């Protein structure tokens, strides 16, 4: 287990560009956690999976925050993990090729594993 792994947090993001603030906040908190050397996995489910779609994440802006693209790029650069729900992309006809590099795909088992490993879980 990596250093600080026992402090890992998981953040669920379930909103896409239809709610820019709720789409952005998981990555605001995620970046803050990484700055504080806390490992983070953001799990995208429901409409949240659209945030990883190329051509979508570049266009999400919430008042008072940096653009989502800047936050997601920074999150990945700092070593944050993003897990995308496979059934949620399939139901939206989103293929893996349409997603950003760096996004990992997973089903319920991966989600359970991430939560069991986490010290705390946040839901947006």
């Amino acid at each position, binding site marked *: 287990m990596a250093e600080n792994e026992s402090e890992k947090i998981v953040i669920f993001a379930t909103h896409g560009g239809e709610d820019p603030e709720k789409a952005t906040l998981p990555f605001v908190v995620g970046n*803050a956690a990484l*700055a504080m050397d806390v490992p983070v996995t953001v799990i995208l489910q429901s409409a949240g999976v659209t945030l990883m779609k190329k051509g979508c994440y570049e266009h999400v802006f919430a008042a008072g925050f940096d653009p989502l693209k800047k936050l997601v790029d920074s999150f990945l650069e700092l070593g944050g993990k993003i897990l995308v729900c496979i059934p949620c992309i399939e139901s939206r006809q989103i293929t893996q090729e349409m997603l950003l590099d760096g996004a990992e795909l997973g089903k319920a088992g991966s989600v359970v594993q991430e939560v069991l490993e986490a010290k705390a879980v946040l839901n947006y």
Partner: protein
Amino acid sequence: MTQVDLANVQAAKIVDARGSACPGPLLEAKKAIGTVPVGGVLEIWSNDPGTKKDIPLWAKKVGHEYIGFLAGDGYERIFVMRRK
């Protein structure tokens, strides 16, 4: 450290994070602290009022020492000493 002492601190590096939205100043502090020698001081400028609360939390968590802040003209100067 008193306000007078802080005013005399020679920062090894100044990060101008004015205009940067949360959590930008934290990220900029994280990037910059590595360029400061151990025992040296990083000074962060921010006009986000939350930054002076977040930087001490960040410093404590990652093992550095928050030494205080000074009010600037429309912004705050926040001082952190690199400890490791």
